[in-house]
């Protein structure tokens, strides 16, 4: 490994990216526009459906469960559901498993209304049997929930197309052939591409993060260092996936098709736009093989729930394994021509 050759290529690639104004602007503008769009779309306070989590019971204990315009969502684990009440993702949580209890967020207007409805639809004796518990926490708006996914998705496109597509273009127009005729090794070339892309993506993501936070002040409960680690490892994993896609082909059209084939399932099944809770189990299993799922899960846990490094170790472990596997496959398949 020659650090001089690595550094020369890294510098050249960085210049290429920074000077490609249209691509650079787009990689910053797209996520900002998406976030602003969602912030606007979901800013309407006139929601006609209240969300109530229900733990245990059979739904017949009280007429409250027959109230229209309330969505009753079965929950299987109390702790995360209480967290959702804290962040206004559930307006109320009812535990019917033993002695009836319910949780409200003390700052939630919806929770106050639902409590009045619960009392109004339940017999006095029964209602008096409910134990009220209150929690407090800042509301997690949809845009707060979606923010980690949008950042990760933008990074995914940057990694897959920024490395995969560029290498294919280099191969097609002869840049790779020219480099092959120098003492540069494939490892030095690929390392420079990977490191350059990660540095630039983290820089761009930081700009997007700070810019959108300034505009919409989204929730960030965890450590910035932990989030940086998640996105850095995630970017490395996705870049290595891009290397596999670009290992052999010299056709930009084919590469574009393959990259879209990989990117779109992640867009849909990795939880960028909607929670995977409640979707078909097959889709949930499928989501687990997609690196973006684990990046988003970890980033969302850090940003929305304040998760620590220990809390997200499983996701980091999976991403590390995926990175090693993708890198090994990509490096073994790589051809200059």
């Amino acid at each position: 490994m020659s650090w001089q050759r690595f550094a020369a290529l890294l510098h050249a690639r960085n210049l290429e990216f920074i000077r490609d104004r249209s691509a650079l602007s787009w990689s910053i503008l797209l996520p900002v526009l998406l976030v602003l769009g969602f912030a606007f779309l979901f800013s309407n306070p006139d929601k006609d459906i209240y969300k109530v989590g229900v733990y245990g019971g059979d739904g017949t204990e009280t007429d409250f469960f027959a109230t229209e315009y309330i969505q009753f969502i079965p929950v299987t684990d109390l702790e995360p559901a209480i967290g959702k009440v804290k962040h206004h993702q559930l307006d109320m949580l009812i535990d019917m498993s033993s002695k009836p209890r319910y949780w409200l967020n003390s700052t939630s207007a919806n929770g106050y209304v639902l409590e009045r409805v619960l009392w109004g639809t339940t017999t006095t004796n029964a209602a008096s049997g409910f134990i009220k518990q209150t929690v407090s926490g800042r509301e997690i708006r949809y845009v707060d929930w979606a923010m980690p996914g949008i950042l990760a998705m933008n990074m995914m496109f940057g990694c897959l197309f920024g490395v995969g597509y560029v290498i294919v273009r280099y191969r097609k127009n002869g840049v790779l052939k020219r480099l092959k005729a120098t003492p540069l090794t494939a490892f030095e070339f690929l390392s420079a591409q990977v490191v350059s892309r990660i540095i630039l993506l983290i820089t761009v993501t930081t700009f997007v993060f700070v810019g959108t936070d300034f505009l919409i002040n989204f929730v960030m409960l965890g450590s910035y260092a932990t989030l940086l680690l998640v996105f850095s490892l995630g970017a490395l994993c996705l870049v290595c996936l891009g290397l596999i896609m670009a290992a052999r082909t010299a056709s930009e059209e084919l590469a574009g098709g393959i990259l879209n084939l990989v990117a779109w399932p992640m867009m849909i099944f990795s939880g960028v736009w909607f929670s995977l809770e409640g979707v078909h189990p097959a889709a949930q299993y499928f989501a687990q093989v997609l690196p973006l799922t684990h990046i988003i899960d970890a980033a969302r846990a850090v940003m929305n729930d304040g998760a620590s490094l220990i809390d997200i170790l499983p996701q980091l472990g999976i991403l590390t394994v995926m990175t090693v596997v993708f890198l090994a496959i990509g490096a073994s398949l790589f051809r200059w021509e």
Partner: protein
Amino acid sequence: MLTPTIQVNNLKKQFPGVDAVNDVSFAIHEGSCFGLLGPNGAGKTTTIEIMEGILPTTAGQVLYKGQPIGSRFQQEAGIQFQNTALQEFLTVKETLQLFQKLYARSVDLEELIETCALGEFLERDNRKLSGGQRQRLLLAIALVNDPQMVFLDEPTTGLDPQSRRNFWRLIENIKARGKTILLTTHYMEEAAVLCDEIAIMDHGRIIAMGSPKDLLEAHFNDILLQLPEEDFVLPQTPPNWDVRRHNSHIIIHTDAVHDTIRYLQEHNVSLARMEIRTRTLEDLFLELTGKELRG
């Protein structure tokens, strides 16, 4: 005898359904310019790319200074490909600096810039170079590591005549510095001006090899007299004359120029538009293969 700078022995390259290179052998000695000539599809580029280590060979071997090509060759070879793109959004100077850092040894950039006449467009984006400027940059990249062996694959294809002649001067400069050069071209004039030795390829084989002078002497001993067809009015052409028609012209092949001209004058043939020329490599190729070089 000195070990050649580079030598190919019984080189073969097969692609599905075609023998692109078939049992090709030659050697290039230090400080000489060797021309590999032939029409498109003759196997020149395949041969040169095998020698450069870009393509694997089907059979045969390439030796650089007596050893199979390896890391030493990569450090000491300078290569200008026929078709290549450069990194986008980089200036000429940045491109040179990039390639300079890929080698352990390099020339002084200021000197290289002057040699290849890059000064006027040094800060220009690679994408905005003209054909001639681009070829000069590619040549500079090939020379950036102060190579001992320089490969130039059709370096003047697509250039206008003036740019081509300017490029020839650059190559003569490189020759004067004692570099060993392998040049492929389908311009016979270029080979005649620049090459000490040539090999003519057709259908993947070498069909003639030697210095241009030796090859011409070995194959031809005649001079060509060319007249417009309408001027060539003779009651009877002497039976021992070799007369051919080509593009509305009569071409007389003769080894007795004075006698032939005298005969034409005696029979009142107008010589006002007559051209006399010696044989060229173009003729040699036509003679050997029966087809035009750039056909």
